[in-house]
């Protein structure tokens, strides 16, 4: 879902960069000692996840894990994803430097949205928490697809066509990420429930 260089218009690039700066600013402000280490680990996870290629479907897609990042980091998902995207652009030539802002918004905004939608389900019983975890994994990818569609629509392509294409190609990714998020939440609920949101303070 990385948008390459030279596709988007200047206005889209600029607004994407502006949104990314705001999100990263909020995220950095919310970082505390605990979250710094956690952001780093999850940033590394996001960085590597893009190498896990899902060989289903006509197009070429990979895992994203932005839902997991959002759930465990809240606003700090913005800086974590920005750092990972910079490194992906430099080392893997995924996306590009000029599209960093847009790509950060594509991945991080759904993460934060899912965080606020589902954080209160996490300390509930597994009957609530696990479906919510699946929704976090799947919905974050779905929302990313919609933002990609929006970004491309501003330039040339048709919104519904592109969005349908992106989301269609990512259905396997959505399912896998939903399941992985389920496992992760089930695991953390048993071992380290403090890592999940909703239990302690409610502020991100």
């Amino acid at each position, binding site marked *: *879902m*990385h948008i390459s260089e030279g*596709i988007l218009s200047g206005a889209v690039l600029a607004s994407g960069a502006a949104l990314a700066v705001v999100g990263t600013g909020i995220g950095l402000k919310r970082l505390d000692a605990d979250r710094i280490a956690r952001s780093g680990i999850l*940033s590394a996870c996001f*960085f590597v996840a893009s190498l896990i290629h899902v060989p289903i479907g006509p197009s*070429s897609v*990979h895992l994203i894990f932005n839902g997991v990042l959002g759930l465990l980091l809240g606003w700090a998902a913005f800086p974590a994803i920005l750092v990972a995207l910079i490194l992906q652009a430099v080392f*893997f*030539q995924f996306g590009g430097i000029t599209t960093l802002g847009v790509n950060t918004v594509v991945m991080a905004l759904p993460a934060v949205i899912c965080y606020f939608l589902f954080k209160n389900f996490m300390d509930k019983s597994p009957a609530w928490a696990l479906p919510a975890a699946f929704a976090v994994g799947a919905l974050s990818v779905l929302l990313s697809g919609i933002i990609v569609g929006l970004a491309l629509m501003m330039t040339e392509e048709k919104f519904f066509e592109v969005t349908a*294409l992106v989301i269609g190609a990512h259905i396997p990714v959505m399912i896998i990420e939903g399941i992985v998020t389920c496992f992760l939440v089930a695991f953390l609920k048993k071992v380290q429930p403090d890592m999940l949101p909703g239990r302690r303070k409610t502020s991100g």
Partner: protein
Amino acid sequence: MKILHLRHWIITLFLILYTSSAAFAHRVDIFAWVEGDRVHTESKFSGGKSVVGGQIIVYDDRSKEKLLEGTTDDQGGFTFTPSRKARLRIELLAGMGHKNEWVVKEEEFGLTPKGDSGDSAPAALIPVESAPIQKTPSGVEIEGAVERILDKKLEPVMKLLVQSQQRETSVHDVMAGIGYIFGLVGVGAYFYSRKRNDKSADR
């Protein structure tokens, strides 16, 4: 016990994910080479998966004029005969915001960048020498034949080049990236602890 089970599941899941495909995704590459009058292109995602139905647009790189368009076939290939032998910029749009391009230089068509003057001297010599014997092929014919044979012989080499053009992500890249992230965590922790120390010093 339960926890152990869960952990096993997660590890197995990741193992399956990793081993099911060693391929890497999410960049498109296009590579083009000239064979006689025609230009062949091959388009692939960075996992080695061919770009099927990708849009290809060919421009004259000097005049920025659009020459032709097409779509890639099932193997990610697309062949065209350009209307002029010039520096071509071949753009690939693989959908969902994927894009890349490749430039075919004039030299690949057997042209020198500034006109075609250097090659004509040896070609002119041959007809003069062979003028008495009627059946000897002309310089142009020999050149054409050699070019055809060379193109045929070079095809596997070009294919090899196509494959080597695709820079696979290496373990080094992954390790380097993770190293950077850990370094940044260190920087973050440093500034955070300084901030806290300043605060406690103020009190």
